[in-house]
C-alpha cells in the first residue's frame, strides 16, 4: 500500500526550501500527463532547483540527481485549490485560531498572507493529496481584503507566497442565507432594501476610491506628495487601475449581473466566485472573458432549482467557453478539491476540462499561467506522482513535489494512523 519509494525518499530528503539551487531531482519512467501538450507514456522529468528543467523520454540522468522511479505511476501537475481559508483557521469552533473575518465592512488594506500560519496542521493534510497551491483569504464584510496564492510548503509566509497580492475580495451584497442555504458564512442584511442600500454604499465606496486614485495619480505626475496617506484608499488603487482583479463573491444570477455592472462602470477586472447560477449567463461570461471559480460543489440548490444544478453548472460554463476553476472554500476540506471536480464530471463536464480547471486554467485565471499548472520546462516543479486519475477517490498520491522539493508524505492523520494501528490488542 504505502510505497517503498515514498518511504525511502522521505527519510532521505526532508523539505529544504531555501538552499535549492544545487538540488537535482529526476522522475523516471512515469506516464506523464502534462495538461499542456501530449501525454508521454514512459516519460522523464528533470527538476533543477525549483524549476522543471526538461520533460521527455529517455532523458539522461544528471549526476547527483535524486531519482524517483515512476514505473506504473502517473505524473500530473500539482492541483490548485482556487479558494480556501488554509492557514487562516485551524479548528473551526476555536475562535483563537480563526482569522477569517475582520470587523467592519471595508478592509481592502488587510493582507491575507499576513495571517497565514505556515505551520498549520491543515497544510500537510492538504498537500499530501496532490494539492500544491491554494488561494487563501479572509471573507468578512463587503471588501474583505487582498487574497493570496500560496504554495503549500515553506518556513515563512513570504517563502510560501506564489502571488502575494492576488485579488481583492468583494462580497456582493445578498439576502441572509442566500437562495442556497449558504447563510452560515454570510450574515448579510435583513431585507431587500438593505441589500440595495449596501450595493449603493459599495458603489459610493468605489467612487471614492476612484477619485482618490485619480487625485493621487495627478499629484504623483506633478511631483507632489500627499499630506496624509490613507492606507485603505491606497490599497484600492491597484484595483481601480485594473491591475489587481476583484474576486466578486456571488451566488445568484442577479448578483452576477450586479457585479458585472459594477466591474463595467468602474473598469474593474472581475473574477466571479461561487456563482451557482452562472449557467444562466454562460454566453455573456464567455464573451466578456470573466472567469468563474466554482465550489464547493458539495452544497445543495434551493428547493425550486434542478436537483443537479450545482453539479452541472461547471460543465455548462466550460462548454460555453468560460474559463473555470474549482475551490473548496474552507480549510479542513481543502484536500477534497479534486472530488468537487469529479462531481462536475459526473454531471456533464469533460474530464480533460476538469483537470485543466484544477491546474493550468486556475493558474491562468490567477495570473500565474507562466509558472504553474502544467509540466513544461521552465515551470515551477509542483508535481504529483499518483497511482491514477486525481479525480478518482481511490487514487493514491505517492509523492508530491513543491518547488522541486520532495514533500514528506506524512501528516497529522498518517501519524495518528500509524500510532494507533500499532496499538497492541488489549
Amino acid at each position, binding site marked *: 500500500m504505502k510505497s517503498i519509494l515514498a518511504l525511502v525518499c522521505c527519510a532521505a530528503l526532508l523539505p529544504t526550501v531555501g538552499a535549492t539551487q544545487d538540488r537535482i531531482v529526476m522522475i523516471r519512467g512515469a506516464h506523464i500527463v502534462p495538461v499542456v501538450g501530449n501525454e508521454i507514456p514512459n516519460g522523464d522529468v528533470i527538476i533543477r532547483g525549483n524549476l522543471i528543467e526538461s520533460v521527455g523520454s529517455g532523458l539522461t540522468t544528471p549526476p547527483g540527481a535524486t531519482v524517483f522511479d515512476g514505473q506504473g505511476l502517473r505524473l500530473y501537475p500539482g492541483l490548485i485549490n482556487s479558494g480556501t481559508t488554509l492557514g487562516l483557521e485551524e479548528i473551526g469552533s476555536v475562535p483563537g485560531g480563526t482569522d477569517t473575518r475582520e470587523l467592519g465592512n471595508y478592509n481592502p488594506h488587510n493582507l491575507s498572507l499576513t495571517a497565514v500560519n505556515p505551520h498549520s496542521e491543515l497544510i500537510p493534510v492538504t498537500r499530501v493529496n496532490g494539492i500544491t497551491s491554494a488561494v487563501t483569504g479572509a471573507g468578512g464584510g463587503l471588501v474583505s481584503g487582498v487574497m493570496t496564492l500560496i504554495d503549500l510548503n515553506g518556513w515563512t509566509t513570504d517563502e510560501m507566497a506564489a502571488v502575494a497580492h492576488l485579488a481583492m475580495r468583494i462580497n456582493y451584497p445578498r439576502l441572509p442565507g442566500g437562495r442556497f442555504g449558504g447563510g452560515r458564512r454570510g450574515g448579510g442584511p435583513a431585507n431587500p432594501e438593505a441589500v440595495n442600500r449596501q450595493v449603493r454604499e459599495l458603489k459610493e465606496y468605489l467612487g471614492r476610491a476612484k477619485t482618490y486614485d485619480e487625485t493621487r495619480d495627478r499629484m504623483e505626475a506633478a511631483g507632489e506628495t500627499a499630506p496624509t496617506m490613507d492606507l485603505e484608499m491606497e490599497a484600492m488603487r491597484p484595483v481601480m487601475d485594473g491591475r489587481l482583479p476583484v474576486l466578486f463573491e456571488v451566488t445568484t444570477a442577479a448578483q452576477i449581473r450586479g457585479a458585472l455592472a459594477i466591474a463595467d462602470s468602474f473598469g474593474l477586472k472581475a473574477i466571479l466566485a461561487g456563482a451557482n447560477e452562472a449557467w444562466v449567463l454562460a454566453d455573456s461570461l464567455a464573451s466578456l472573458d470573466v472567469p468563474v471559480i466554482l465550489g464547493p460543489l458539495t452544497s445543495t440548490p434551493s428547493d*425550486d432549482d434542478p436537483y443537479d444544478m450545482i453539479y452541472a453548472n461547471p460543465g455548462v460554463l466550460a462548454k460555453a467557453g468560460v474559463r473555470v476553476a474549482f475551490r473548496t472554500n474552507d480549510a479542513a476540506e481543502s484536500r477534497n478539491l479534486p472530488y468537487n471536480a469529479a462531481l462536475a464530471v*459526473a454531471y456533464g463536464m469533460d474530464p480533460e476540462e476538469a483537470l485543466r480547471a484544477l491546474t493550468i486554467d486556475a493558474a491562468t485565471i490567477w495570473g500565474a499561467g507562466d509558472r504553474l499548472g502544467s509540466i513544461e520546462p521552465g515551470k515551477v516543479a509542483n508535481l504529483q506522482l499518483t497511482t491514477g486519475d486525481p479525480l478518482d477517490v481511490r487514487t493514491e498520491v505517492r509523492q508530491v513535489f513543491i518547488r522541486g522539493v520532495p514533500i514528506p508524505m506524512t501528516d497529522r*492523520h498518517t501519524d495518528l494512523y500509524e500510532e494507533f494501528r500499532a496499538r497492541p490488542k488489549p
Partner: protein
Amino acid sequence: MTRTLIAALLVITIPAAGQQTTDGWDSDAGPLAVAIPPAGRLVAITNATIMTASHGTINNGTIIIRDGKITAVGPNLTVPQGAEIIDGTGRYVTPGIIDAHSHSMAEGINEGTLSSTAMVRIEDVLIQDRTSIYRQLAGGVTTLNILHGSANAIGGQNAVVKLRWGLPVDSMLFEGAPPGIKFALGENVRRTNNPPRAGQDRRYPFTRMGVEQFIRERFTRAQEYRAAWQAYDAARSNLRRGEAQPIPPRRDLELDALVEVLEGKRLVHAHSYRSDEIYMLLKVAKDFGFRIASLQHVLEGYKVADEIAAAGTGASTFADSWAYKLEAWDAIPFNAALMADRGVRVSINSDSDERARRLYQEAAKAIKYGGASEEEALKMITLNAAWQLGIDDRVGSIDVGKDADLAIFNGHPFSPAARVEMTLIDGRTFFDRQTAPTLDRLMREIEQSKQAVPDSEEGSR
C-alpha cells in the same frame, strides 16, 4: 403498533392504484411535482454489473423482482414472461444506500431543554414533502435513520424510514424496524459551543464526568421503575379472592423508553467523539446489561477499536470530516478502515442532506485511506448500516428474499464520473434521471420558451 399497521395497509393499498396520484398532486404539474410510481409487480434488471455487498460482484447479471422482493439474482437468468425490463447494460447496480445518521424530514431535531428527553419521538414530527427526500433518492439513498439531535445526553426516539417519495409519511416508516434512541456525549451535550443565553442557567451535566453520572442515574431509575412494574404485575397475577387490586406504578414515558433499552428492545445510537467518552459509555452499558447498537460520529473510535468490537457495537462515522471543533481534532480519514480491520462493523453516514447525496463518493475514501476492499467500502453505506439498525434481514444487500431497494449507477459507483440513474424501493422506481428535473432539461425548456416568444429576455431568471 397502530401506526405500523396503518403504514403496512397503506403500503399495500396505494401501489395497487397504479398510475393514481394522491389528492392535490398532479403528475403533469411540472418537473418537481410528485407522482407516485406504479407498483412493479414483476421487474427484471438485465445485463448489469451487480455489486451485491454480500457475495461479491456479478458481471452481466440479472435481478428478478417480484412484488417488491428480490426473487433471483445471478448471471444467465431467464427473464420471466411479462416482466418489465430495466436494461442494465453498462450500468452498476448496488443495494440502495442506507444512511445511518440523518436529520432529514424532521421538523424538530433537538428537544434539549432537559438532559434526558427519552420520551420525545422524531416519528411525530416527520415532514413528507421535503425536496431533500427526492434529492437523496437522486443520490441512490433508500433508507434513513432519522435521529434526534445531540444537545442532551439522552435524546429522543429515532425513526427509520424508506424514502417512498410521494407517499404519505406513515407509509415511509420502515415497517418492523427496531425502535431506537439517540444518546450523546462530549461538546454538544456540554453545550460549550452553544453557551446559554443571558438569563439562562447552564444545564447539568456540564462535564464528561457529569454526563456519566447522569446516564447512570437515569438507568438506575429505569431499573427501579421496571422492578416496580414487575412487582405490580406479580401482585396482580397472584391476587387472591377478596384482596384489593394493587396500585400500578405511575406511568413514566421517559423511563418506559429506557426500560426498553435495558431489555434490548430499543437500540441506542450514541453520538460520540473522544475515545475516553466512548470507553465510558461502553462500560456504563455493560454495567447495566445492554448493548450500544451504534456509536455515531465516533471520530476517535480507531483509538478504542478493540473495545468497540468486543462490545458488539457498530460504528457509524464520517469519511474524512475533521477540525471543525476541538473534539474533531484527532479525527483521521483512516478511522473507518482501521476500525473495520479491528473487527468493528463500520458504516459511513452523512448527518447532512447534502452529503447524503454523494455517500458513494464518501465510501470510496475508506479504500483510499486504510485500504478497505471495494465490497467492504460498499458495505459501509449499505449492509453494515442495515445491521446497525437491525434491518439487515430486509435490506442492505442484493440477496434473494430481500426488499428490492436498489441504486443503478451509470458506471462504477466509486469512479469519478459516478452518477445515479435510477433508484428503486420495493421494486418501484422512485427516481429516474430520464424523467428527472435536471439542469439540462430546464435549459432546454428555457430555450424553447425563448423560441416561442421571440422578444423574451434571456433566461428570465
